[in-house]
């Protein structure tokens, strides 16, 4: 009797789990593969027959191969540079406890939400020919002309990619590092290994899953970079993403645009496939530790040097451009002023699309929180799907969920127009499409943050819990969840960020009158006049403030009393 009951219970659990798996699959099929398929079909087979003549043109003109190779190598260089700079930072955040840590971590993520035009101008204000740095250098060394000119060079592109992506590497690596035991490294050093040797042979191999995940995200972001390359790199640098927009919108050449989209998607899928294979072999159970037991206060001179050095780098690299923007938003023609902030609240012309700051903040936050809920819920299910048992299909499934990050926004947006056009799916122009599209881009962050943590959980822990009589759900709550909580919060922070900073270029859909903060910034930047520019900077500063509060809020978020891990 009893065992029968158990079987029934078990099988119903099985059904629940698998029907849960259907949820993200349905979401991806409905909002990614179906619209994408529709637009590709329309592009390649407008009259029924397949037409790949566009492909020939792409191969013939060498131009596109040059674009592809430039896209690839700048992304590789950006990734390497970001990791090299962020790894020491991740160490400091994983191993030290110091005042202001949460705030600094929040600040490091702010670049992500700022429009490129604004960031580019902050860079010009600091590094440009008439910028602060050149000013100092010229005054100090009595130089006749600015010594540094990075305008439209590859260096400014790399610098901007580090600026944008530093926090991706910092957060993912440090949250993983924090759970790794410090004693192994200490033992190695006690046995006579130099710190460098101990790092290379003990710590680095243990960190590989997190470094790999961070590298992948940074690479994808740099690979599909649009604004940074166009604006900072100048018109001579083109990426595939830029070319797709030009072909689809300016030339209405859908076959070429679709072909380029497909190239980008297949390339990413290939890359992801290789990555997934190496990662699942690499991840091994580690003895995860509570963060309290591995973090220490800054005590010795060496501690001060390491922590101070890294924080100094973060200040120069990340905080100074942000600070330049904020200061600028308070500076008018006659010195310090609140004019631009006051002006935000006044609708001088009774304009229909005037955005009261409170409303913009509310809209942005509501959409971003919805995105967080969607992305985290679906992300957890996907991670469960990828780690339950060992199946061949998992290796194919994992790369698929990363594709939205590498899909041109125009292509997918046009797909929505032709695919979601009939009830019950007539969502065109509906507000719900905005968080749905954000969720597609946010899910890869959740997966990449959480997956290494889940894989590193020692299966013995689960078995022990199960032997002690815990139900699968209890095992998850008592063992898995506390251990991946921090990774989950990292994913949630990025889901929030993706949504808060989206201003219509990443997700391309027609939207009704629901102004968000980035949309308001772009609206100000669209017309001449000092007041418009000032208000754009004021709104950008408010956006940073709201995001910083959001990041800190999410990091403080607790579900029940899961203990401090």
């Amino acid at each position, binding site marked *: 009797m009893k065992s029968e009951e158990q079987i029934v219970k078990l099988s119903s659990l099985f059904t629940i789990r698998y029907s849960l798996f259907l949820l993200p699959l349905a979401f991806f099929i409905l909002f990614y593969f179906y619209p994408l398929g529709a637009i590709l079909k329309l592009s390649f087979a407008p009259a029924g027959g397949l037409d790949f003549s566009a492909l020939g043109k792409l191969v013939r003109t060498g131009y596109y191969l040059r674009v592809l190779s430039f896209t690839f190598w700048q992304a590789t260089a950006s990734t390497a540079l970001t990791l090299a700079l962020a790894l020491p930072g991740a160490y400091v955040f994983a191993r030290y406890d110091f005042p202001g840590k949460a705030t600094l971590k929040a600040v490091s993520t702010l670049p992500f939400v700022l429009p490129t035009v604004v960031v580019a101008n902050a860079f010009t204000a600091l590094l440009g020919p008439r910028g602060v740095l050149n000013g100092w250098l010229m005054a100090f060394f009595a130089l006749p002309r600015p010594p540094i000119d990075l305008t439209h060079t590859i260096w400014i592109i790399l610098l901007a990619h580090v600026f944008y992506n530093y926090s991706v590497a910092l957060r993912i690596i440090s949250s993983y590092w924090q759970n790794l035991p410090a004693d192994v490294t200490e033992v190695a050093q006690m046995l006579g290994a130099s710190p460098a040797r101990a790092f290379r042979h003990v710590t680095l191999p243990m960190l590989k899953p997190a470094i790999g995940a961070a590298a992948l995200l940074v690479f994808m972001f740099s690979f599909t970079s649009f604004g940074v390359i166009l604006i900072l790199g100048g018109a001579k640098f083109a990426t595939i993403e830029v070319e797709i927009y030009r072909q689809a919108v300016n030339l209405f050449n859908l076959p070429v645009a679709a072909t380029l989209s497909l190239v980008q998607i297949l390339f990413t899928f290939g890359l992801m496939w290789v990555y997934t294979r190496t990662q699942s072999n690499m991840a091994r159970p580690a003895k995860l530790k509570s963060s309290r037991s591995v973090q220490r206060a800054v005590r010795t001179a060496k501690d001060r040097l390491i922590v101070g050095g890294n924080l100094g780098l973060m200040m120069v690299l990340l905080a100074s451009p942000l600070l330049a923007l904020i200061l600028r938003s308070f500076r008018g023609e006659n010195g310090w002023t609140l004019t631009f902030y006051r002006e935000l609240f006044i609708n001088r012309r009774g304009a229909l699309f005037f955005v009261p700051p409170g409303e913009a903040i509310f809209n942005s936050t509501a959409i971003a*929180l919805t995105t967080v809920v969607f992305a985290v819920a679906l992300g957890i299910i996907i991670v469960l799907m990828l780690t339950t048992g060992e199946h061949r299909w998992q290796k194919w499934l994992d790369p698929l969920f990363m594709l939205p990050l590498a899909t041109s926004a125009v292509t997918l947006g046009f797909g929505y127009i032709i695919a979601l056009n009939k009830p019950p799916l007539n969502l065109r122009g509906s507000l719900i499409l905005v968080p749905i599209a954000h969720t597609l881009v946010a899910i890869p962050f959740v997966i990449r943050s959480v997956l290494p943590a889940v894989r590193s959980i020692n299966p013995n822990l689960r078995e022990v819990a199960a032997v002690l009589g815990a139900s699968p759900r209890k095992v998850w709550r008592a063992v898995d969840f506390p251990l991946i909580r921090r990774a989950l919060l990292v994913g949630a922070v990025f889901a929030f960020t993706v949504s808060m900073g989206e201003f219509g270029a990443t997700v391309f859909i027609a939207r009704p009158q629901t102004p968000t903060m980035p949309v308001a910034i772009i609206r100000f930047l*669209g017309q001449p006049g000092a007041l418009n520019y000032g208000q754009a900077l004021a709104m950008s500063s408010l956006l940073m403030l709201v995001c910083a509060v959001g990041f800190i809020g999410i990091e403080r978020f607790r579900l029940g009393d899961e203990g401090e891990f």
Partner: protein
Amino acid sequence: MSKKLILLLLPCIILLAACAPQPAEPVTLRLMTHDSFEISEDVLNQFTADTGISVEVLKSGDGGAALTQAILAKDNPLADVFYGVDNTFLSRALDNDIFMSYNSPELKNIPDALKLDPQNRALPVDYGDVCLNYDRAFFAQSPLDPPASLEDLTDPAYANLTVVENPATSTPGLAFLLATIGHFGTDGYLQYWSDLKANGVAVADGWEDAYWGQFSAASDGDRPIVVSYATSPAAEVFFAETPPAESPTAAVVSDETCFRQIEFVGVLKGTKYPAEAKKLVDFMLGKTFQEDIPLNMWVYPANSTASLPDVFTKFSVVPQNPATVSPEDIQSNRENWIEAWTQTVLQ
């Protein structure tokens, strides 16, 4: 925990509620347009008060992107009226047959020069000129005169002073390329651009980057000449912190230096409410709406009976003879011209 769950679910509920179908109202028209569309709330409310028809505005990216979406949605239109297809995209709109003909009574007040579609499927609603702008302060201190023609920019005295936008990625960039094609002809424009390149022209990706990033009158940049609009100097006055007596910038409006962008409005084929949609088009071409256009979108009203705001009459000048290229020519040569330009200037 349950409290937190509710807090988490709240935004979803709000969103779902916002998307739920509204209780049946008379008629709500959807107006599809580009991101730069702006109008006074009162003006639109007046239309609703007069006719009982509500209007929902759907912004859909830049002009090209919005039009492409309207074409893709042709079989099952997203909207009833489309505002803002310009003369560079007009042929694409007409070739794809998305508009129905409508001989609005308001057309009598619109100059024939603006009417480019004899069948009145696309009705002219506003126009604006893309022109060179310059930094007055720079030229006041410099021995150089402000530029007066396109040819001036290739004079070595003007080396490294100009920033233009990439025609492949920017609407004003394309308009300025068309101005050079209109002036130098299809055999001469490439030579002009290669001279311009030799004279150190800077190419920005879009207007925002050129104006806020490189134009010396509006940024930390060091280029005193920029491709912008004829109305930009007026906007500089209107949006100044304290209203100046004179604009910090000026537009070059001499013959064949500018390109005129004419925007059109039309009723989309397949609308369920053709009668109401036509009423909206009439309203948009009428005096009230037309007089509201300048300060909101910084272009000129197409309706010649509409009076202009002071800041336009004082600080903005309409070029008498802009360079012209026909919509058909633009449609059939756009790709070739842009590719030739890219090869000449960027590669």
